[in-house]
């Protein structure tokens, strides 16, 4: 009898553990976000109170006035954060969505320390950029509005310098123009590693660099995860933004986006709302195209 009670209790506890997310979702509509550590208003108040510094002796091409303006932009309009044109910064930009959303104050404080001291740590990750990086930030040109955002240039270059994946083995050290080359590129494992380390969140990833993930119903999979956190897609950019009219049988992923919403219109149409290039976009695609385009689905849960 005692054993039977224990069995029943274990069964109930297991059922509750499994069902808790579903129940929580049902009653609270979404999961409480325990990753939010500061707010936009706190970041703005801190930026207003902070003493403006002189030019940095480390980042000699980043004027302090523009730098502070950029930090204010990070706090006020995080969705305008722009990765730039014709470079390989999309992974770093997608990743920055989380610090800007969850911890704008901490991120701005980190950026100021990096500016003043030439080195700083964020969530325990140390950034010690080399001389080439220090010199280059502020000089990137013809990248769209990134030209006017030396603070974002600093951050992108630091991330690319700090984290390496197998794609970076052929070109490990920065030379002028390397923001457009394999030096800055990000394979899927590197992206997930960066996300775990920099954002300190529970990250679940499905997919790989060449093989698509085995997910039967991609729409439902993304939709369900979206309710419990942030979803990043690693996909072949050609399906979102066609640049050529030639057809290639060999498809590889080249771009990272953040899914903001996904809705099924009918059996053949899905509305995908995503964020990239500093804009929220809505694109109507077919379930087949969605499956074909996606090589990786990363889910950063709203819990640390």
């Amino acid at each position, binding site marked *: 009898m005692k054993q039977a009670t224990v069995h029943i209790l274990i069964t109930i506890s297991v059922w509750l553990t499994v069902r808790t997310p579903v129940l929580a979702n049902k009653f609270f509509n979404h999961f409480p976000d325990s990753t939010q550590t500061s707010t936009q208003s706190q970041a703005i108040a801190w930026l207003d109170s902070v003493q403006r510094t002189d030019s940095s002796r480390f980042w000699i091409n980043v004027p302090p006035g523009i730098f502070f303006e950029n930090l204010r932009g990070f706090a006020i309009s995080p969705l305008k954060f722009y990765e730039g044109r014709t470079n390989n910064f999309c992974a770093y930009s997608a990743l920055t969505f989380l610090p800007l959303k969850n911890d704008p104050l901490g991120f701005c404080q980190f950026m100021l320390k990096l500016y003043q001291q030439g080195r700083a740590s964020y969530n325990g990750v140390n950034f010690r950029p080399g001389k080439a990086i220090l010199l280059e930030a502020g000089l990137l040109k*013809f990248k769209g*509005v990134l030209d006017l955002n030396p603070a974002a240039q600093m951050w992108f270059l630091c991330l690319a310098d700090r984290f390496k994946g197998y794609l970076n083995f052929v070109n490990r050290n920065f030379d002028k123009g390397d923001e457009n080359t394999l030096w800055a590129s990000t394979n899927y494992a590197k992206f997930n590693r960066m996300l775990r380390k920099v954002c300190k969140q529970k990250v679940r990833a499905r997919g790989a660099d060449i093989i698509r993930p085995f997910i039967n119903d991609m729409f439902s999979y993304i939709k369900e995860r979206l309710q419990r956190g942030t979803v990043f897609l690693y996909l072949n950019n050609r399906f*979102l933004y066609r640049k050529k*009219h030639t057809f290639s049988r060999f498809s590889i992923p080249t771009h990272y986006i953040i899914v903001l919403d996904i809705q099924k219109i009918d059996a053949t149409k899905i509305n995908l709302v995503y964020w990239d290039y500093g804009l929220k976009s*809505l694109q*109507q695609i077919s379930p087949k195209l969605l499956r074909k385009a996606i090589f990786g689905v990363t889910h950063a849960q709203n819990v640390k």
Partner: protein
Amino acid sequence: MRNYLFYSIIACLFLAACSSSKELSADYYRQNEEALVSIKDRFKKIHRLHPFSFEVRDKDFSEVGIEIITDTLRYIYHFNPGENNLADTLKAHRFNVPEMLTLFADMKQMRCTWITNLDYYERGQEKYMVFLSLRHNKLGSKRKEKYFTVAFFDQPQFYDNKGRLLDKEKSRNIMKINGQVFYKINSRACFTLSDTFR
């Protein structure tokens, strides 16, 4: 005699392959200047009220796409051949539908694959150019660069002695648009040949 013929053919093929793409394109622009400038002007006029970009997504010029940029969202629509909802979409976004359809028809006639308003920055100031790509028939299918791209500026631009677009006056820095070097057509327009249309 046979050898002579063989070398002559090789030389002709080599010359044909090396025929200046630049001249080809500059000529192409001059021949079609009126139509291209008209497309650019009408695009700018509509864009002022309703920011948008237009693309042709296939070689047959039947599958088209439009990006409509509002304050909150960028809508990206694709229309497959046989679908007649382009006009409905334009109407829903309060475009002047006949004006837009005429513009698209003219663009298709000119084999224009992409038109957009592109931002660039000069001495910290935001400026815009009209960026227009054409699938150039004369380039043929064997060449890597299939697209003839024209950038239209509002202000006169600066070029070096090789006709390459510079970022400012008396500068040595060559300005790149979408990673490409552009060459002078006239003071406010320049072109490049590219393997991508956007």
